[in-house]
């Protein structure tokens, strides 16, 4: 085994992806810090009072969808819960992955849609739901479906609903905050500034730049976090099944397929195994998932190890 191939050991890859998504979340914290600094520079200390308000509004809007994510997503995607009798094989292979992951059995659902795709959500493993489209059940064999189930259960095991809720809350709070401040700056009250005369003009300009760029930076970081969590779920799936080939073949099937899930809402786009929004024309920077070709290449490298 060469040093290079050891890079594709799943434990190493997991640690790497975890660290990177942690760093990205930390990056969002830094943006919040920068915005608070800009706020204090421009409006003085009294302006800080609106920070908890913005965070509060963002929390209120994200928290509900995080807490009831299983029920909300089922409604938004039109997924229908099934029991063991309705699809014995699907039920079996999900419960196999649960044994491998040491997780409780989630609710299993089916989405009537010809495009092959799948997703998982839920605030914790006890409230998890995993869903497959009728299309994916038709085009994939047992081994490929097991890879898909393992990828989805990895999202449950890694608490990705929580991670994305935190990212969404931060990005949301920043959007509210900067929007609010820009309005005040443009329409408003110079009288709100406490220490206008003592201000360093460079700091004032810097604070305006921070306020303009912060929401965009937060959005890009949020997408980067989503991509890292997808990559992590692929690797964790290999930890569960020790069979990179199953998931790799499943992703190849998705790559060849051109149909796209008929989405009712773009707000749940990021939870599918193959993004219904990203396509080859989308720049990687703006995608919720890493490119399929990159994911397949990583899994192939992992196959070389076993």
């Amino acid at each position, binding site marked *: 085994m060469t040093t290079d191939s050891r890079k594709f050991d799943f434990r190493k890859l997991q640690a790497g992806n975890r660290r990177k998504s942690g760093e990205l979340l930390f990056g969002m914290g830094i943006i919040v810090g920068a915005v608070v600094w800009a706020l204090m520079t421009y409006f003085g200390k009294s302006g800080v009072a609106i920070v908890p308000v913005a965070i509060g509004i963002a929390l209120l809007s994200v928290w509900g969808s995080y807490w009831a994510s299983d029920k909300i997503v089922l409604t938004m995607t039109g997924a229908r819960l099934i029991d063991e009798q309705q699809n014995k*094989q699907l039920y*079996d292979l999900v419960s196999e992955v649960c044994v*491998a992951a*040491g997780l409780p059995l989630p609710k299993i659902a089916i989405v009537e849609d010809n495009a092959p795709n799948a997703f998982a959500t839920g605030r914790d493993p006890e409230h998890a739901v995993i869903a497959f489209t009728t299309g994916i059940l038709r085009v994939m064999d047992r081994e490929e479906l097991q890879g898909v189930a393992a990828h989805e259960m990895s999202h449950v095991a890694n608490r990705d609903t929580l991670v994305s809720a935190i990212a969404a809350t931060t990005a949301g709070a920043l959007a509210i905050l900067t929007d609010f401040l820009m309005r005040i700056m443009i329409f408003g009250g110079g009288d709100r500034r406490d220490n206008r005369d003592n201000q360093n003009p460079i700091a004032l300009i810097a604070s305006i730049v921070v306020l303009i760029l912060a929401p965009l930076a937060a959005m890009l970081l949020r997408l980067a976090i989503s991509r890292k969590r997808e990559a992590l779920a692929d690797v964790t799936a290999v930890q569960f099944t020790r069979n990179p080939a199953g998931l790799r073949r499943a992703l190849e099937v998705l790559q060849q397929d051109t149909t796209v899930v008929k989405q009712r809402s773009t707000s749940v786009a990021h939870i599918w195994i193959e993004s219904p929004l990203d396509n080859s024309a989308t720049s990687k920077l703006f995608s919720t998932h890493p490119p399929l070709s990159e994911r397949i290449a990583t899994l192939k490298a992992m196959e070389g190890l076993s």
Partner: protein
Amino acid sequence: MNAIVLVLLVVIVLALLAVMSRNRLVRLNIAVDEAFSQIEVQLKRRSDLIPNLVETVKGYTSHEASTLEAVVAARAKATSATTVADVAAADGSVTQALRGLLAVTENYPDLKASANFLALQEELSTTENKVSFARQFYNDNVRSLNQAIKTFPSSLFVNSAKVAARPFYEVDDPQDRKAPTVKF
């Protein structure tokens, strides 16, 4: 005054670290126990399938008595095992006997086409997968526990947490060890 506060803080942090390492060992040890009982649950499931399988195969075959007996005998032996090594050994012989039985069924198209057997086959393959995933999960847990026992700082609390290194679950499977044969 400040020095006392500092010393107190250091002591509190150290005590917290100690409690956390010790609790981690206890938690890992419980995880190993749970993982082992999961193996036993799955082995029991497989064991419960065998009588039905044997009856179904018997109905379609005439001269496979010895293969069937091997499965029944392996199953009987597995029920008395308790230690990890014994359970693993018995598990290995049942796995092997079942594999022999399934190989034999290839010669009976009527059997393979029967609805009863098809349902059994899905049940058997999922159970076989669950057994092997449960073994893997157990071994991963043993690996974490044994690593924590050997590494600092949790290694300091091995005695106080009353934990010891646990054996891996190793199934003696001749098929795994056999080198792949290359044919031209």
